[in-house]
């Protein structure tokens, strides 16, 4: 188990390292001149050089690369943001948490709803309920998340006035530390973006669960559970669904990765101050240290969830031996 975990972590670290390298060179070698954004062309050449030097941009490329690597690995330092003129890490610190909270809430919503619906769909196969669940799942799968977000804003925020339409908390709302994330106000802001994101990812766990359940319902131990006189609800969830969980849950890793990647759009629509929104902002301002760091952090979150899901896999199925 520990060996497995170690191997998995080393794999992830190597991948991360290669990713850092690819990203570094991608930013430096592609045609856009990132310095243009921060160095005013009207300044004298000396001043331009000075500003470049202050960001280390006067060094040869390979040196910049090693300095960059060294700073990330030794100091967790991703450089200075061109736009904010402060360290990237301090800009992103709160963004990371915001993104993870939104993403995790969304995936939990998608999977708990998807698994329950999928289990019931298989149990009541051929019913109107099954048909309509499939249609709803497919619709939200085919609709771009940002569009669903806009529609939900139209209906639930502007139309019905149930939810705030942007941001993470009301202006002037005072709270500090971790309590910022446990307030009703925060929750109120979280519900709509998390629901929209979750609906987009609903179809897969739902359909996988349904198919797995269809297999399980023919197993002898389900028949035995009926013979034991257990209540139907207990048979569906405690016996059947628990066994059908595995195929759907193993997709959680890749889905969480996709979700965190696609969260850019939701954060944009709902003005959610997270990593994804920061990528859009930074990219449009050519603030490449910030864009680069946001991108890497998102990739890091993706890998973290991949490792986590592998562990979950073993926990769910006692037959798995590492």
């Amino acid at each position, binding site marked *: 188990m520990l060996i497995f975990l170690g191997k998995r972590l080393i794999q992830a670290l190597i991948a991360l390292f290669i990713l850092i390298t690819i990203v570094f060179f991608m930013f430096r070698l592609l045609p856009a001149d990132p310095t243009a954004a921060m160095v005013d062309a009207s300044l004298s050449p000396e001043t331009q050089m000075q500003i470049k030097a202050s960001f280390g941009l006067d060094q040869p490329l390979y040196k910049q690369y090693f300095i960059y690597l060294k700073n990330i690995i030794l100091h967790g330092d991703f450089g200075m943001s061109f736009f904010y003129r402060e360290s990237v890490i301090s800009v992103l610190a709160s963004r990371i948490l915001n993104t993870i909270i939104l993403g995790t809430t969304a995936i939990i919503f998608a999977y708990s709803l998807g698994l329950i619906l999928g289990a019931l769909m298989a149990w009541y196969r051929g019913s109107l309920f099954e048909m309509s669940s499939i249609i709803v799942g497919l619709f939200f799968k085919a609709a771009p998340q*940002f569009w669903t977000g806009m529609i939900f804003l139209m209906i639930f925020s502007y139309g019905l006035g149930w939810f705030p339409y942007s941001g993470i908390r009301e202006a002037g709302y005072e709270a500090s530390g971790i309590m910022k994330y446990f307030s009703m106000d925060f929750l109120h802001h979280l519900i709509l973006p998390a629901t929209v994101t979750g609906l987009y990812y609903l179809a897969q766990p739902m359909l996988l669960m349904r198919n797995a359940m269809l297999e399980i319902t023919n197993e002898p131990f389900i028949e035995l559970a009926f013979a034991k006189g257990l209540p139907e609800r207990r048979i569906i969830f405690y016996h059947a669904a628990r066994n059908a969980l595995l195929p759907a849950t193993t997709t959680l890793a890749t889905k969480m990765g996709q979700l965190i990647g*696609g969260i850019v759009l939701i954060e944009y629509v709902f003005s959610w101050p997270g990593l994804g929104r920061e990528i859009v902002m930074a990219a449009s301002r050519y603030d490449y240290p910030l864009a680069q760091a946001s991108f890497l952090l998102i990739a890091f979150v993706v890998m973290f969830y991949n490792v986590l899901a592998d562990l979950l896999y073993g926990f769910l199925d006692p037959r798995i031996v590492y």
Partner: protein
Amino acid sequence: MKSKKINLLFNDPLAVAGIIILTIFIIIAIFAPQIAPYDPNEIIRVDGKIQRLQRPSGEFIFGTTYMGRDIFSQVVIGSRIALRVGLLAAIFVAIIGTAVGLVSGYYGGWIDTIAMRFVDILYGIPFIPFVIILVSLLKPSIWNIILAVSILTWRTVARIVRSQVLSIIQRPYIKAARVAGASDFRIMVFHILPNILPLIFVEMSFIVGWAIISEASVSFVGFGDPRVVSWGKILHTAFNNGAVRVAPWWVAPPGFAIVLLVISVFLISRGIEQAINPRLRDGR
């Protein structure tokens, strides 16, 4: 054999529905300039007054934008971009993915290891952020969006093709061809490829939908090709002009167009999948 499978596809009502919807979109795209009543960028004035945010009516089927442009015409013209991005991305991805998968699975060894490790790393790259960054670094254009989508998406095709190759390569006729002295290239292209083609088609139709949504997403956050009208860009403009608050008719049509088009390719790929895989057909 082939025609039998095509028949199966046409016997599946959902797949037929998908084919019909897709055909309608293709017809609209081809005749877009004839169908659209206005130039999508034209600022429409009546008696010198700009027709801002007009509700849907006989004159403007889907209403007008804040700048007084006809939304129906924009959506009609937008279908061209969606289809172009979808089809081209799917073709590129299929070519790259198939080539890598074939070579990787066929030769095995270190080629395979390197290719598959690389694919693993690609799987760790968050898709939309990557496309946004690449497009912004390369300057926004349709071609760059297609390129960015293709660079990442071939990973799925490569994996699927490789695993298929690994099983096909064990079949006796491949060994026979090898003994008969066929070149590696010949075996890959003439003996292995035809067997995986249907599966590649299934993947391609998924990618069409995926690419359409990606283009819309990238355009929506402001990295779309400034010279063209796409559904994502219509929504980008709508969002930035507060249409969510004041003009639902501006938001709904391009979104529904995306949903319909994507569902149609879903249905078609599902149809192909069931036609080639009899196990999926009976029962569920």
